[in-house]
């Protein structure tokens, strides 16, 4: 596998350079190699060769990043779980992947029923970083996203998928990292966007700067940009929404690339942000977890490239080897200029949801193109293809929303809200927007007011923090649309948060 060999080469070639800065402590590529070899030794000597899906607790430390590389050198996949997410949900994840081994750098591990490898207490080292022979069809990672029925949905990604992502980014002449770059790594490792913010810096010998837990993210990010003179930013748009009131105080000449993804980027704020970074190229990336992070981008420029639809910047063109197709309800291509669901085909496509045949039938289809069967993933995003071949983002086709970049199924929140409620009443989760333009979750309850403490405690034991509703409104009778469905738009008006 070429990209894994290149990771090895980069780590060895850049041994004097820094790979990571965690809470102001720097680690070199040499330190990184030392950690990888220790963890690799433990993997090779404790985990049976048939065990491929290995749990990884995503702490903010060098050992956690080293574990990913060590697993890959051994041809194994990581199944990341966030230590801040309820244990119950994380165990559900390990249960569904039948994971027995967990790498956990926490001081004390809570995974008592698993075989835990603690990278902090290892003494022996594997002799080298030479990758094993790796099957491209084997998995590199599995990430879990919000599912509609209270069960998180697993998205497996193969080594071939990751190689295809690397090939596509390498092909892009306007984006080139090098070993003097200082890159922001703001993402939790259970979030698929993190794959590009650790993989590309490591391949280039750049240094990653992470965000410690418990800080206010957007201010800490600005502090890093300012004090560490970061050169490469990869962010979700909600970060700059928070910083917007302070844009007039921001002028950061060090930044040369700023990539956005994981949510709609609006034209007005992109222009203002662009003024804060005078030497920077801005990329508006698009891509779902199911298609290995990125599938394409639009090269935004405040004067020359400002294509948008309803104030949302275009998502541009597909990258190398990727096909975009806009279809109607029966998976037939719609004409240029018409709205339809965006579907993605090519080598970055996931083999399919983990053990979820039902969902796979709905989300994937094949069609013949030039005598070849092409498999497509239906993104649930509505798009328009324009005359110049650029794709414009219109909105979602379902009830999925983005909260701080995380994909959230509103029905999963409703499922857990209703599950243990003594009052059997209608509950609907809605996405509402605060005055900064960021989505928050509201829970509308069709009832006279009652105490929701127990409902919230239950939700907090089942779902990560970002999925817990921030606002509750009791409404005696829900508004309905003409065809009898609950009118979600009208419900949203009951929440006044802007």
């Amino acid at each position, binding site marked *: 596998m070429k990209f894994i060999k290149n990771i090895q080469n980069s780590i060895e070639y850049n041994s004097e350079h820094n790979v990571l800065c965690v809470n102001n402590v720097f680690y070199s590529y040499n330190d990184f190699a030392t950690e990888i070899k220790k963890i690799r030794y433990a993997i090779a000597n404790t985990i049976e060769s048939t065990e491929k899906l290995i749990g990884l607790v995503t702490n903010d430390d060098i050992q956690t990043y080293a574990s990913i590389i060590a697993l890959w050198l051994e041809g194994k996949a990581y199944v990341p779980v966030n230590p801040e997410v309820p244990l119950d949900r994380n165990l559900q994840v390990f249960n569904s992947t039948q994971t027995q081994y967990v790498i956990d750098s926490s001081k004390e591990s809570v995974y008592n029923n698993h075989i835990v490898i603690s990278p902090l207490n290892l003494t022996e080292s594997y002799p080298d970083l030479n990758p094993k022979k790796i099957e491209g069809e084997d998995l590199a990672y599995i990430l879990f996203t919000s599912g509609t029925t209270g069960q998180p949905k697993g998205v497996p990604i193969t080594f071939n998928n990751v190689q295809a992502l690397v090939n596509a980014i390498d092909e892009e002449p306007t984006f080139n990292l090098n070993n003097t770059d200082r890159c922001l790594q703001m993402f939790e490792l259970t979030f698929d966007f993190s794959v590009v913010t650790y993989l590309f810096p490591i391949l280039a010998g750049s240094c990653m700067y992470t965000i410690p837990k418990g800080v206010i993210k*957007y*201010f800490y990010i600005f502090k890093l940009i300012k004090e560490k003179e970061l050169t490469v930013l990869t962010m979700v748009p909600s970060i700059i929404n*928070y910083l917007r009131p*302070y844009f007039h*105080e*921001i002028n950061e000449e060090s930044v040369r690339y700023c990539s956005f993804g994981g949510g709609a980027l609006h034209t007005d704020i992109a222009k203002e942000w662009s003024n804060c970074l005078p030497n920077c190229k801005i990329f508006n990336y698009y891509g779902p977890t199911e298609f290995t992070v990125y599938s394409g981008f639009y090269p935004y420029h405040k004067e020359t490239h400002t294509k948008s639809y309803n104030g949302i910047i275009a998502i541009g063109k597909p990258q190398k080897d990727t096909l975009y197709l806009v279809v109607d309800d029966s998976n037939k291509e719609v004409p240029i200029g018409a709205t339809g669901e965006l579907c993605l085909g090519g080598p970055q496509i996931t083999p399919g949801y983990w053990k979820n045949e039902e969902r796979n039938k709905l989300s994937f289809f094949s069609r013949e193109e030039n005598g070849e069967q092409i498999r497509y993933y239906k993104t649930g995003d509505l798009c328009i293809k324009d005359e110049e071949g650029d794709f414009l983002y219109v909105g979602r086709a379902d009830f999925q929303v983005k909260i701080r970049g995380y994909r959230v199924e509103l029905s999963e929140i409703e499922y857990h809200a209703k599950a243990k409620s003594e009052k059997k009443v209608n509950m609907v989760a809605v996405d509402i927007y*605060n005055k900064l333009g960021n989505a*928050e979750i509201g829970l509308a309850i069709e009832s006279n007011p009652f105490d929701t403490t127990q409902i919230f405690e239950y939700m907090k034991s089942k779902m990560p*923090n970002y999925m817990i509703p*921030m606002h509750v409104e009791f409404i005696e009778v829900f508004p309905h649309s003409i065809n009898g469905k609950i009118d979600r738009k009208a419900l949203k008006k009951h929440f006044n948060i802007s």
Partner: protein
Amino acid sequence: MNREDILEKVTIAFSKVLEHNNFTLTNNTTADDVDGWESITHMMIISEIENDFNIKFKLMDLMNMNSIGDLLDSLESELKVS
């Protein structure tokens, strides 16, 4: 206004935004220690405090504000200037 008075006013702003008062703010308190104090509510708390004290924080102050102690320091110096 002395530091205790400032802290009292700050505590009121916190409970108004967070809609609870299950916390005691001291110099060492950080976002980790208070239920509900995170990205979104931080923004709301800051603007609540700016309104209550009739001041405007600088981004440079905010980026170094890691604890209640830092917040009180900033407020003290802002209030001296105005």
